[in-house]
């Protein structure tokens, strides 16, 4: 089935990062399914998406359970700095999952992710604000505003489909670059909507009568401010987003996407509606970016146009390359790496060699972080195809030889 026999599709062989092996046991890409771990997945029939029974004997089940439950306790133990850093990482992870669906799984290079993040962030402000600060605000309930903002980001992605459905490779990459510049132009100039260069305040989220602001609420002797409350909202959004993306990647759409990435013409011949799928993935990826934008706005409590520049788009590409193209866990790992690194370096800049406070002439923490992940991008592509997610997968293969 693989049209390119030169690229080995076995998990232990170093494939290029744009043709990664999924770390999912269920088949992704054109690899024949490994029957042992996907019941019903024998003889090339894919397992029904998301329907693998969790096994009580499988240690990974417990690892996953701990991975989900442990973060629930963080707000009780970590201080505000770490919670905010974690929230940034969560928002970045949601956005990275989106761009990984597009760039990693479907092979469509996008440099315009920052634009859709901006649409989400500003969309939320416009829908939720009550217009008290002289800027346009519709005063909708904040949960509705968040949903609408995500939808608007999707619509923005859909409007770009005449281009995103037809172009690929570098053409698409540079065409999406245009989105970032158009977006920044609008943000600086549409003063009523965006507040111009100074940005605008973000109304706090309000869910079921609980407002996610700094009015203190004490839970088990721990004061809950906005960071603590948002932590749970962010965690929920990330879990839902990750599960949904897993489902997409595992099911028919995922196979179609991988087929488009591996060979567009072959995919078309096999009956995949290529242009429609590419446009659809673009929309889906934009919606993820929109959700990430909403969450970022809520954490920042203020949106400014400078943030949503070309650098941010490059950061997201760096995330998925470092984490591993085409997989959800890779996107999350890369997002955590890229978004926590500057914060960690800032926090511990006194204790680290070569790094000094900003403005003193040495290498500032932010710059050091960019050096590190710029180098990481290069090194990962050259020496670790598949990124961080593949390292984990490779280990798994080694420890459980019977599985593959």
């Amino acid at each position, binding site marked *: 089935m693989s049209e390119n026999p*030169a*690229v080995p599709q076995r998990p232990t062989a*170093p*494939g*290029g*990062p*744009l*043709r990664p092996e999924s770390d999912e046991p269920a088949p992704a890409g054109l690899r024949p399914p490994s029957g042992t771990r996907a019941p019903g997945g024998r003889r090339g029939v894919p397992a029904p998406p998301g329907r693998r029974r969790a096994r009580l004997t499988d240690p990974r089940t417990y690892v996953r359970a701990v991975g989900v439950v442990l973060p629930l306790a963080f707000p009780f133990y970590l201080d505000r700095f770490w919670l905010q850093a974690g929230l940034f990482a969560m928002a970045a992870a949601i956005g990275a999952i989106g761009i990984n669906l597009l760039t990693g799984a479907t*092979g469509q*290079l996008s440099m315009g992710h920052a634009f859709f993040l901006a649409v989400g962030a500003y969309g939320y402000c416009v829908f939720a604000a009550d217009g008290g600060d002289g800027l346009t605000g519709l005063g909708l309930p904040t949960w509705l505003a968040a949903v609408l903002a995500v939808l608007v980001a999707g619509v923005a992605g859909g409007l770009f489909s*005449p*281009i995103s459905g*037809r*172009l690929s*490779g*570098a*053409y698409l*990459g*540079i*065409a999406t*670059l*245009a989105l970032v*510049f*158009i977006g920044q*132009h*609008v943000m*600086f*100039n*549409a003063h009523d909507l965006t507040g111009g260069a100074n940005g605008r305040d973000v109304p706090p989220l309000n869910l079921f009568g609980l407002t996610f602001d700094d009015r203190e609420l004490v839970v088990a002797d721990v004061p809950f401010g906005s960071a603590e409350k948002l932590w749970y909202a962010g965690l929920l959004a990330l879990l839902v987003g990750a599960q949904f993306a897993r489902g997409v990647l595992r099911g028919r759409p995922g196979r179609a996407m991988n087929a488009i990435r591996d060979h567009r*013409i*072959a995919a078309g*011949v096999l009956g995949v509606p290529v242009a429609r799928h590419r446009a659809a993935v673009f929309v889906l990826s934009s919606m993820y970016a929109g959700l990430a934008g909403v969450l970022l706005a809520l954490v920042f409590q203020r949106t400014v146009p400078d943030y949503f520049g*070309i650098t941010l788009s*490059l950061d997201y*590409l*760096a995330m998925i*390359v470092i984490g591993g193209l085409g997989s959800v866990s890779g996107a999350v790992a890369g997002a955590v790496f890229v978004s926590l690194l500057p914060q960690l370096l800032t926090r511990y800049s006194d204790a680290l060699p070569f790094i000094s406070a900003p403005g003193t002439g040495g*290498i*500032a923490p932010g*710059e050091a972080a*960019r*050096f590190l*992940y*710029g*180098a*990481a*991008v*290069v090194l990962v*592509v*050259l020496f670790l*195809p598949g990124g961080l997610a593949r390292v984990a997968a490779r280990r798994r293969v080694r420890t459980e030889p019977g599985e593959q």
Partner: protein
Amino acid sequence: MSTLAEILLNGLSLGSVYALIALGFVVIFRATEVVNFAHASLLLAGGYITATLHDDIGFWPALLAGIAGAALVGAAVEFLVMRRYRGSDHSVLAIVTIGVDILLTTELTRRIGTDVIPLGDPWGDAVLRLGPVSLAHTRIAAFVAAVLLIGAFLLAFRYTSWGVAMRAAAESSETAALMGVRLGRVSLSAWAVAGGLAAVAALFLTVFPTPGLERATSLAALKAFPAAILGGLDSTTGALVGGLLVGVTESLATGYQSDLTFLGRGLGDLAPYLVMVAILLIRPAGLFGTKELARV
């Protein structure tokens, strides 16, 4: 009328500078099929070298040093990074260049900081008056230099053995390698040439009326991407036409800004991208790009 003439002439001059950058971009793409997203940082490197050296060794030697330096940086990127990749997927290498760009741009912007460094060019802010039309000397110099360089390049591309090797590699790298073309040298020289062209472009992007080299210079250099794309990534003619088109559009949008206030300020910076999107809607492979043909 005289304003229009001024705007068009300035646009042509600016466009020829973009064409220089886009040409380097296209050369790398044709020789190696790699889209070089680090191109703006090569340009910044050349500009930075010229800017720091001109006080000590004079402008012309500094310019030569800048060109050589940027060529060296380009060659080093090819030799140290691109060559280490053993796979066959060129879109992966495009992502590597993004990593390289992050590295180079971070270092250079860190060095430049918030300064605006003049390049010490001999033209200053002198203006040539031709009847009602006035034109800065720098703009004329930019146009002349770009035309000379592009002409020399195209001749070399056509007649020297280096150019033949380059075109052969672009046509079919495997066949070229079998015929004795050393692909490593071809791609090394492509990167070096692109770096050198970018350094010259850096000079003309930072002289009058621009105050000097600053962080934002790399953003100006990014406008050569739409130029290369709308002309067609694999076409040298496309790079030239694309560059001129982008330059003239930007100049027009900036020149008639006061009539276009309803579209917001800073429209000139946006114009190249709008033109590109409009052209890609009609011709997805650019104006002169070869339509993708695939054998199934």
